C-alpha cells in the first residue's frame, strides 16, 4: 500500500500557509518538531471544550471522562511500542525528562544505603553511551556520574559513514557497566543503530539498556520486546502530537524497584509528616497534575499514525530519502554526514556546503520558503568527532513530497550561486 500524500497534506492546516512574502511552505524540519494534523488539533479542542477536569481525583462525571481519556492514551502508547502492560508507560513532558527520570532515580538509589543494587552507582561503575547521542542522552549521565563518582564511557563513530564503531564493544561493555544508553536512530546522521546486538551484550554482563527512540518511533514500527531494551523513551511533538507530552517505557519489575524521581501529589500511597510510601508504577513517577490534554492529543496522533500505518509511512520516507540522497550527492561541494544510501538509515539528512556556513544555507532556504535546521542539532560531540563545526539538516515526514526534495536541491544550488561558490 502506498501513501496518498496529497490526501495526507489536506490533514495539516499549516501546510496551506505561505511564508516570507507569499512563498508556499516547504517544511523539512520534522526531526526538530513535526506539524500537527487537524485530527490532533480537534482532539485537543474537544477535550478542553467537553471533558476538561483533573484526573484520578475529581469525583464527578467530567473527572471520570478526563481520567478515562488520559488512561486510554496510556493503553494506546503501550500498544504503539509493543509493551506488555500499560503500567509500564510513564507520561513525561518530553524524552529529555524521561531520560532524566531514569538518571535521577538511579542517583536517588545511589544516595541512600538501601537503594536496589542494580540502580546503585559509585566509583568504578560505568555508564556507556555513543558519540552520536543527542545532548539529552549525554548530559543527564554526565550529571549522574558527577553525583556518584561513576565513569561515563562511549562508543566512537566510525567516521563520515556514520556508524557506531562496535570494534571496542568488548572493552566498553564489561562487568563494570551498569547502564548502556543509546540512540535508536540518530537525529543527525539518520543511522539506525544495532540496538538489539548491543542490548544483548549489555544484558550478558548484567547491565541495563535505555534506548532514545525520539527519531524512530514517529517514523517506523518499533517494538520494545524485539529491541530487547529495558527502557525506551519518545516524545509526542515529533510524531504529530502536541508539545509537553512524552513517554518513558520501562520494564515493570524495574519500575517497581526504582525510587521515585519527582515527589508530589498523585505519586504517593500514604503520607505522614515523617515519611511517605509511594503509589505503584506508573503513578509513582507522575507527580502533580500531568499534561492531560496533551496525552489525549498524543492518543489522537497515535490513532492517526496507526490508521495510515507506520510501515506505509516508513516506505514513503524511504522513497523521499532515496531521491534526496541522489539529488544532494549530485551537487558539487556538498557532503552528506552519514550513510549515503537509504538502507539502515532514516529520513533526516545533514550536510555541509563548501564555503557556505549552515546558518547562511538555512537563511537562503528560508527565504525560498524551505524550513530546515542549521547548527549542531544538539549533537555537538558528534560534529566534533566528524571535524565539522555545524551542519544543515533537512528531515522528512509523511506529508513531504518528491517535489519538495527537488525544491531543496534547487534551493541549495541557488545558495551556492548567491554566495558565489559554484
Amino acid at each position: 500500500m502506498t501513501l496518498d500524500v496529497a490526501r495526507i497534506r489536506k490533514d495539516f492546516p499549516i501546510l496551506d500557509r505561505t511564508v516570507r512574502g507569499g512563498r508556499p511552505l516547504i517544511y523539512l524540519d520534522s526531526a526538530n518538531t513535526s506539524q500537527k494534523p487537524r485530527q490532533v488539533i480537534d482532539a485537543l479542542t474537544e477535550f478542553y471544550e467537553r471533558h476538561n477536569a483533573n484526573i484520578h481525583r475529581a469525583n464527578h462525571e467530567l473527572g471520570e471522562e478526563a481520567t478515562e481519556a488520559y488512561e486510554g492514551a496510556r493503553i494506546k502508547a503501550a500498544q504503539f511500542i509493543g509493551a506488555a502492560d500499560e503500567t509500564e508507560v510513564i507520561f513525561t513532558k518530553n524524552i529529555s525528562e524521561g531520560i532524566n527520570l531514569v538518571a535521577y532515580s538511579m542517583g536517588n538509589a545511589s544516595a541512600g544505603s538501601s537503594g536496589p543494587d542494580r540502580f546503585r552507582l559509585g566509583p568504578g561503575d560505568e555508564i556507556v553511551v555513543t558519540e552520536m547521542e543527542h545532548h539529552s542522552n549525554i548530559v543527564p549521565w554526565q550529571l549522574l556520574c558527577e553525583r556518584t563518582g561513576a565513569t561515563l564511557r562511549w562508543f566512537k563513530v566510525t567516521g563520515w559513514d556514520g556508524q557506531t564503531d562496535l570494534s571496542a564493544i568488548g572493552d566498553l561493555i564489561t562487568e563494570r557497566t551498569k547502564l548502556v544508553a543509546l540512540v535508536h536512530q540518530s537525529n543527525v546522521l539518520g543511522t539506525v543503530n544495532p540496538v538489539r546486538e548491543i542490548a544483548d551484550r549489555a544484558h550478558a554482563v548484567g547491565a541495563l539498556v535505555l534506548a532514545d527512540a525520539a527519531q524512530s518511533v514517529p517514523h517506523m514500527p518499533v517494538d520494545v520486546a524485539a529491541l530487547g531494551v529495558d527502557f525506551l523513551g519518545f516524545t509526542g511533538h515529533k510524531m504529530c502530537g502536541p508539545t509537553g507530552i512524552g513517554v518513558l517505557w520501562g520494564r515493570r519489575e524495574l519500575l517497581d524497584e526504582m525510587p521515585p524521581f519527582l515527589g508530589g501529589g498523585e505519586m504517593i500511597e500514604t503520607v505522614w509528616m515523617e515519611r511517605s510510601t509511594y503509589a505503584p508504577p506508573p503513578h509513582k513517577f507522575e507527580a502533580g497534575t500531568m499534561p492531560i490534554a496533551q496525552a489525549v492529543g498524543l492518543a489522537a496522533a497515535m490513532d492517526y499514525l496507526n490508521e495510515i500505518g507506520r510501515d506505509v509511512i516508513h516506505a514513503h520516507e524511504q522513497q523521499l530519502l532515496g531521491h534526496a540522497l541522489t539529488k544532494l550527492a549530485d551537487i558539487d561541494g556538498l557532503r552528506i554526514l552519514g550513510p549515503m544510501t537509504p538502507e539502515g538509515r532514516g529520513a533526516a539528512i545533514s550536510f555541509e556546503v563548501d564555503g557556505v556556513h549552515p546558518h547562511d544555507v538555512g537563511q537562503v532556504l528560508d527565504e525560498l520558503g524551505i524550513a530546515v535546521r542549521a547548527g549542531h542539532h544538539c549533537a555537538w560531540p558528534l560534529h566534533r568527532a566528524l571535524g565539522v563545526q555545524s551542519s544543515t539538516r533537512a528531515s522528512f515526514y509523511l506529508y513531504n513530497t518528491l517535489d519538495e526534495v527537488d525544491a531543496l536541491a534547487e534551493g541549495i544550488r541557488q545558495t551556492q550561486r548567491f554566495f558565489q561558490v559554484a
Partner: protein
Amino acid sequence: MQLESLYQEIILDHYRHPHHKGLREPHDAEVRHVNPICGDEVTLRVALKDAGAEPAVADISYDALGCSISQASVSVMSDLIIGKPVSEAMETCDEFVALMQSRGEAEPDEDVLGDAVAFAGVSKYPARIKCALLGWMAWKDATAQVMRDGEPS
C-alpha cells in the same frame, strides 16, 4: 527577495576578506565566546593603551569560526573600534546593540556606526541577531576585564 537587504555587499566583502583576523601580541585580555545555538565561536584579544585622560583601544585581534554575519560583524567591529577611546567605543557598542534590537525599525546613525549600519537588516531576523553580536559581546567582555583587573600595557 529580501536576501540582498540582509546580505549587503559590504557584509559579504568582510566575510570573504576579514580585517584584523589572527591572534596577535601584545594583548591585555583574551576571551572565548560561543553561540550555543549553532556552535559559532570567537576567541578575541584586546590591547588597550594610555591616551591622555582615558585608555583607548590599541588593537583587537581574533580567531573565529562561524557564519557570514558573525564573521563580517567582528571584522567591521574591529575596523570601527580600534583607535577609539574606551568610553566612546562602549557607546558605539551600545548603539549597535540597540540597532540589533530594533526589529528593523531603527534608522542607524552612520556617523556613529560607520560600515556597521549594513547590519540593520539583521535585526529583522531574530535568529541571526546573536550572530551579529557575538564579536561585539566578546570585545565588551574582554575590555571590561582589562578595565577591572589591570593596567593597559
